[in-house]
């Protein structure tokens, strides 16, 4: 019962209070959009919690999957903005005709499908190769990090045809709706909140099913799971694909609310930061992933405006005290504090 109150408070605050505050003129639309973007991060963080918190696989390329979603939707919006002409950056780069892989992104339906299929397919192939070779632990982290770096370098190049360092920007409309419009922004915010709730519910179902228990069992003792006749690789692969999918969904909602997507969103640091959200919030708990993503990003916004230079020190400090003193993260800390008041049963 007590748990439900937290969920209700969360939804009441973000679905009613914040939009109402905006309509009353107390909360600026930029703040609303900012939180909309945090929700996108939280969706990706749920995926990281599934693969790292529950299954114990440290994947350091989730920001790459996030950006695949962002880039997909950005390509669509850019094509719609430029109409029959080529997108501007192509003109500067002296590209004369639309590259073949841009063509399907002219259709919105196809874009949605591709934004989900491409990351899942890539995750499947990468996961298949890695898990088949029984790569785990720190080696998994290193290889996925190297992959993130390679992809970042690829996206940086102008020849890749995705805008190079500058990325994709200057989109005006999505489905014919002007992105600068306040109500469209509010709609995107609510859409992100809705999808966050749906993703949370789905992850909740997954982690509370027997499938989720097998994932935790893999984290605890992989060989015991094998000797209990479960094909560990199938389970790891499935959760890797689901995590990539969640990251891509977050990315798809992120691009229209931010107005720009650059390779900077997918560099090695970005993936590491995503893992840190989950670590700070409390890994192995879905609430922790959401709370971590929202709080750390909120803190980021505050700190970078108050003392711009010291953000990395603050984040590093938080990370160190989390590792040293409360390894279950923020949510674990809260649980401990509330538990002490309750009588033992």
């Amino acid at each position, binding site marked *: 019962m007590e748990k439900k109150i937290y969920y209700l408070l969360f939804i009441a605050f973000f679905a009613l209070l914040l939009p109402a505050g905006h309509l009353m003129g107390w909360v600026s639309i930029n703040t609303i959009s900012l939180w909309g973007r945090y929700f996108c991060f939280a969706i990706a963080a749920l995926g990281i919690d599934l693969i790292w918190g529950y299954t114990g696989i440290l994947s350091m390329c989730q920001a790459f999957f996030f950006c695949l979603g962002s880039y997909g939707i950005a390509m669509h919006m850019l094509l719609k903005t430029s109409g029959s002409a080529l997108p501007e950056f192509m003109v500067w780069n002296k590209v004369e005709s639309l590259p073949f892989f841009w063509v399907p992104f002219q259709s919105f339906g196809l874009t949605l499908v591709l934004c989900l299929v491409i990351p899942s397919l890539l995750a499947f192939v990468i996961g298949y190769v890695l898990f088949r070779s029984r790569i785990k632990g720190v080696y998994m982290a290193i290889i996925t990090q190297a992959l993130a770096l390679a992809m970042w370098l690829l996206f940086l190049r102008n020849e890749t045809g995705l805008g190079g360092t500058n990325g994709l920007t200057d989109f005006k409309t999505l489905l014919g709706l002007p992105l600068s419009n306040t109500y469209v922004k509010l709609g995107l915010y609510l859409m992100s909140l809705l999808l966050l709730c749906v993703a949370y519910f789905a992850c909740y179902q997954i982690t509370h099913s027997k499938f989720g*228990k097998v994932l*935790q*069992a893999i984290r*605890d003792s992989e060989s*015991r799971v*094998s*000797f209990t*006749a*479960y094909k560990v690789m199938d*389970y790891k692969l499935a959760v890797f694909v689901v995590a990539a999918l969640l990251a891509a969904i977050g990315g798809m909602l992120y691009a229209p609310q931010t107005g720009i997507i650059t390779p900077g969103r997918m560099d090695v640091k970005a993936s590491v930061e995503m893992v840190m959200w989950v670590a700070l919030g409390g890994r192995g708990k879905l609430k922790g992933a959401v709370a971590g993503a929202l709080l750390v990003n909120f803190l980021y916004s505050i700190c970078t405006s108050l003392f711009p230079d010291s953000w990395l020190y603050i984040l590093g400090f938080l990370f160190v005290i989390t590792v040293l003193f409360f390894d279950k993260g923020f949510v674990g800390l809260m649980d401990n504090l509330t538990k002490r008041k309750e009588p033992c049963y």
Partner: protein
Amino acid sequence: MLLSVNNLAVSFGGVQALSLSHFSLQPQELRVIIGPNGAGKSTFLDIICGRTKPDTGEVYFNDRAIMGMTEVSIARLGIGRKFQQPSVFPGLTVYDNLLLAAKMKKDILSSLFFKPSQLLKARIHEVAEKIGLTKVLSSIAGALSHGQKQWLEIGIVVLQDPKLLLIDEPAAGMSDEETYKTGELLLELSNNHGIIVIEHDMKFVQQIARERVTVLERGKLLVEGSFNDIRNDQRVIDCYLGRNNTQLENL
């Protein structure tokens, strides 16, 4: 013949860890393997359950060659393994530990939409009763005592309903009373399963060795026979005495 092994050999870095010419086990037989440290006992079990690949040799389980199969396929055929160090899922409850082990379809989709049947619940409670963990079913397995973890792992293996149980030092780190209970449990299990037990504790071996005992030394079969034969065998005494094993002397 439940299990038969021919000319099994494996070496690690030039050291011959195991070189076993013949070994066989009847269904519902409880066999104890003893031997000094480094005799190749655990290696032998590792090979049967697919954890270690042998250099040469054949292993037949119910007349089916199982060498080269993965751990998962071997486990599916009906060979369950209990490790020397208790290997349970410390983050899950005791009930969930047992639930995951139970024999059922184990692919992803079946797991995702799994609903436990009354029959399965009853079976888990039955096994929990047998291993004496009924009272702690809802506790986290990581919080159990060492002895309880050992029993839980035996429960995990039993719930897989294997035809052959490979049990590595079940009494290690247990009190005398716990050891005795473990022995009774194994004897009861041997009514339905073939069991191979590795053990050092001679009092425990005496308790459970109703049939034959196999002695390994430096990877080779030293002698096979009843517990009384083994206890009075000069070669066995020598191989233990040379290593200051007081357990055998005490008997």
